[in-house]
């Protein structure tokens, strides 16, 4: 089978290709699990690249393409998870840990000041 159109062919507009490429790096290949579709040689990753390029070529924004895929596959498909009730812990936890760390370290700072 020949590759899908745009699976391994760049878009003619470099600005659109750059957008598509950036998006492809943050989308997870569905069958290889752990590779982005930009990195994978799987047939399905090729078809997903073709889909991304086709949609970008048609004038859709990367965010629109990403939400189209999330609508079908859930947050699993993106390496750049959106902020929602299920991912809130993921985004907030680092801030909480910094605050906690500062709190734990406060005694040391106080001693130095004395």
């Amino acid at each position: 089978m020949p590759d899908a159109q745009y699976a391994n062919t760049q878009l003619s507009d470099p600005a659109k290709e750059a957008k598509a490429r950036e998006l492809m790096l943050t989308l997870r290949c569905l069958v290889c699990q752990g590779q982005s579709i930009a990195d994978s040689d799987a047939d399905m990753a090729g078809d997903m690249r073709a889909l991304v390029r086709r949609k970008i070529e048609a004038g859709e924004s990367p965010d629109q393409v990403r939400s189209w895929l999330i609508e079908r596959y859930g947050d699993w498909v993106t390496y750049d998870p959106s902020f929602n009730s299920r991912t809130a812990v993921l985004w907030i936890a680092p801030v909480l840990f910094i605050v906690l760390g500062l709190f734990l370290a406060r005694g040391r700072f106080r001693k130095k000041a004395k």
Partner: protein
Amino acid sequence: MKRFWLWFPLGLFLLFFGVVASGLIKPSSTTIKSRMVGKALPTFSLPAANEPQPGLGSATFGQGQPRLLNIFASWCIPCVAEAPILMKMAQQGVQIDGIAIRDRPQDLARFLARNGNPYKRIGSDIDSRVQLSLGSSGVPETFVIDGKGIIRYQHIGDIRPEDVPEIMAALKAAR
């Protein structure tokens, strides 16, 4: 209180260690369920994959009767395993349509000659376009589409004999 803060970092470390270790020992399930279950079948129209059998479009669905939509390919080995089960379901009167993924007509014809053809219609999806719009991530996968054209059920992987009752129940519920 002081004792608590002394042990707190170790407790935190053990918690992290536990989370990471459990993730390593028991990898999370790798089947990705489609979020399209419960939503309307996307509009599509695919050319015939096995002439003179007709191609497949979304207009075939939602005509009052539930139908089974099987995503398969001649190059897919579990599809061979589920073929006799699909044949049996077709003989029982289940309306089955197929979408052949990334397939060549000659390969598909050989596959159907060898494994039987339970399909009313087969559409050719050469670049997985329709498969991706269904939220399907591999072959074989089988969807139950109800009489109104809503996706009601998704089965991931080949249909084994023990899966048939559940699929038949989903078909019955989709009437």
